[in-house]
């Protein structure tokens, strides 16, 4: 097998070290390493992280291959420094059977850019009425452990309770899209000052917070673990903080866009800013950053949601909700968390790799950068500054809110089990 010597990289942002990859694993980490015949990657000044893991990706295949496929989505993931992504279940057909999840899993393996771990639907057809065959999906080749009706909330309290209880049998977790459906009928943006002015239907913070409050109480009652998807409000942070202090087994994620953007952008009526949950206020953004720093929010997850041009180049009301995020996630986290001094690179590795891998049970990912570990690695040029150009995206879709915006940092290399998927910013 081939050897790769990464020379002089700041491993997790610490002092420079050399990292030797031999085959699929890290052979050695130290200073002044040499290796006969090894390909050398000069990494002076760059930061080496464990390969990023995204617990919340929409790959759209099967069903909406015009938006994204497993191939284009995993290429986008590799571009963004990811070595594993969890693919959400809201495809067509819905990933609510062993057959569909195995298909998605296998496509990821075959393409080889990034491991794809399918998320199974909690309920049949995401309809919220009847539990999907959670056990069968777990026992399939895909080994599903994360279940979510994402895009829709498991709003029926009894169904949610049963799901939480049921997955305990095999160590699964339910990832909740917290959105009280009645409180968000006709909702198009965050409810507040801006929605009042623009005359757009409001998505109130309490619609998220009330479901999170209910679900942490349910998790406590039945002794299960629950994961909160894309938490977006200051009030949600308070509830999760309270739940953790009480010993409830809850984890939570925040998206990069909720760490950076606010609902003021909706004044442009540009649907590129239309997302669910909606962009919130400055106060929420600051609370989310703080919560990610202090560990109340466990991880960053992209909610990468590709949509074709025509679904965004229209008026706000008609536009699809969602943003692509795999290729800009790390840059946004650098800008909002690292460059602001809130988080070290080791903290980023924890929140974008180790912890999401742990929550989702992605074996071999999110491991320490040390000898004997799988060589899933990402090299970042943190000094880079440049504006975002969607034309260069590997994702099939271009619905990024950052077009033309300057963001720091650029992933230059990604290795999946020792095989380079990205070299000098170019996909292999």
């Amino acid at each position, binding site marked *: 097998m081939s050897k790769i010597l990464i020379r002089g990289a700041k491993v997790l942002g610490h002092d420079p070290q050399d990292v030797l990859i031999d085959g699929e694993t890290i052979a050695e980490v130290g200073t002044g390493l040499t290796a006969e015949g090894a390909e050398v990657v000069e990494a002076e000044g760059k930061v080496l992280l464990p390969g990023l893991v995204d617990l919340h990706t929409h790959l759209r295949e099967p069903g909406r291959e015009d938006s994204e496929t497993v191939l284009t989505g995993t290429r986008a993931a590799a571009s963004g420094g990811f070595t594993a992504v969890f693919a959400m279940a809201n495809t067509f057909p819905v990933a609510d059977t062993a057959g569909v999840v195995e298909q998605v899993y296998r496509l990821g393996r075959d393409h080889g850019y990034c491991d794809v771990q399918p998320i199974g639907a909690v309920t049949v057809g995401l309809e919220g009425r009847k539990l999907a065959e959670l056990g069968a999906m777990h026992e399939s080749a895909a080994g599903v452990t994360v279940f979510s009706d994402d895009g829709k909330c498991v709003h029926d309290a009894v169904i949610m309770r049963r799901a939480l209880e049921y997955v305990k049998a095999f160590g699964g977790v339910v990832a909740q899209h917290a959105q009280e459906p009645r409180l968000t009928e006709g909702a*198009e943006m965050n*409810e*507040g*000052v*801006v*929605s*009042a*002015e*623009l*005359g*757009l239907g*409001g998505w*109130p913070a309490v619609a998220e917070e009330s479901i999170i409050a209910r679900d942490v109480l349910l998790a406590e009652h039945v002794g299960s673990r629950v994961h909160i998807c894309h938490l977006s409000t200051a009030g949600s942070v308070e509830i999760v903080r309270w739940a953790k202090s009480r010993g409830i087994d809850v984890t939570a994620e925040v998206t990069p866009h909720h760490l950076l953007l606010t609902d003021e952008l909706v004044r*442009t*009526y*540009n649907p590129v800013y239309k997302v669910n949950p909606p962009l919130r206020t400055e106060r929420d953004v600051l609370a989310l950053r703080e919560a990610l720093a202090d560990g109340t929010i466990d991880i960053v997850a992209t909610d990468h949601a590709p949509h074709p041009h*025509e*679904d965004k*180049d*229209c*008026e*706000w*009301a*008609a*536009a699809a909700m969602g943003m692509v995020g795999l290729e800009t996630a790390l840059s946004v986290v650098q800008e909002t968390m690292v460059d602001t001094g809130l988080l070290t690179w080791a903290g980023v590795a924890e929140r974008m790799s180790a912890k999401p891998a742990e929550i989702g049970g992605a074996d071999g990912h999110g491991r320490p950068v040390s000898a004997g570990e799988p060589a899933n690695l990402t090299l970042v040029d943190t000094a880079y500054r440049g504006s975002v150009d969607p034309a260069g995206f590997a994702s099939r879709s271009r619905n990024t809110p950052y077009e033309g915006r300057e963001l720091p940092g650029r992933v230059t290399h990604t290795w999946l089990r020792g095989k380079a998927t990205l070299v000098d910013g170019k996909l292999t």
Partner: protein
Amino acid sequence: MLRHLISAADLTRDDAVLILDTAEEMARVADRPIKKLPTLRGRTVVNLFFEDSTRTRISFEAAEKRLSADVINFTAKGSSVSKGESLKDTAQTLEAMGVDAVVIRHGASGAPYRLANSGWIDAAVINAGDGTHQHPTQALLDAFTMRRRLVGRDTGLGQDLDGRRITIVGDILHSRVARSNVDLLHTLGAEVTLVAPPTLVPVGVGNWPCEVSYDLDAVLPKSDAVMMLRVQRERMNAAFFPTEREYSRRYGLDGDRMARMPEHAVVMHPGPMVRGMEITAEVADSERCTVVEQVANGVSIRMAVLYLLLGGNEPAVTHTRTEEKSER
């Protein structure tokens, strides 16, 4: 002047007063035997209505025809055009036909803004009502009506509504008329109070330049104009208020309540009125009610807006306004 008219909030005080003054000139045309000006001869205006509104469309059409524009009416509702993407396609079709202005009515808030700012077309865009967002020509015609009644038809020229107290009553939450009026009336110096049950006031209203009250009786004696908004009966089913009768008792305008208003105060309504619920027939038919005037004034205001956005260098009616025009 602006290139497009999307929101009443985009108008400065001077813009607004210029439109009102120009509308006074246009109103004189309606008194002539031949109600027509050559101002927009050779210009094409499309009335692009994605949502039903016979009154507004006819008002714009009358205004366009009195200014001698070529008028195309495009009613998208009921046709295959219903999905959002088609707004762009429709706009580009019209652009290809050499349209100079698009008057757009759309059920989605922000659609006219997108049309004007997405690079889809070059034509001037006039918002004829979008979702629950804005209806700027309605606000202008309301302000015009108020100025005529409260300041005077001739004495009002050049004047704003400084210090006038305007009360807007009803479904503020879903009303583009309320939003437009709050913006414009504030710009014109008036003090606006919104009155509605708390369920029909938007979260975030605290940032609007107006007061909010839940008590109509307390506000009426201090009002120079009371604008009643239409309340759709289906709001009752969505639990915005318990019953039609309870709404009427607490927020409806009847003769007794009208008697508590100052003598000079007027009652306004953007129409169509739901008699018996938000306004009694007695009030609707009284001399203090300006509903019919508002309709007539709507044509003058729309003529003024079209003229100012499209008229270029030609004089509107008289030569008294050449100074302003040369500044454009």
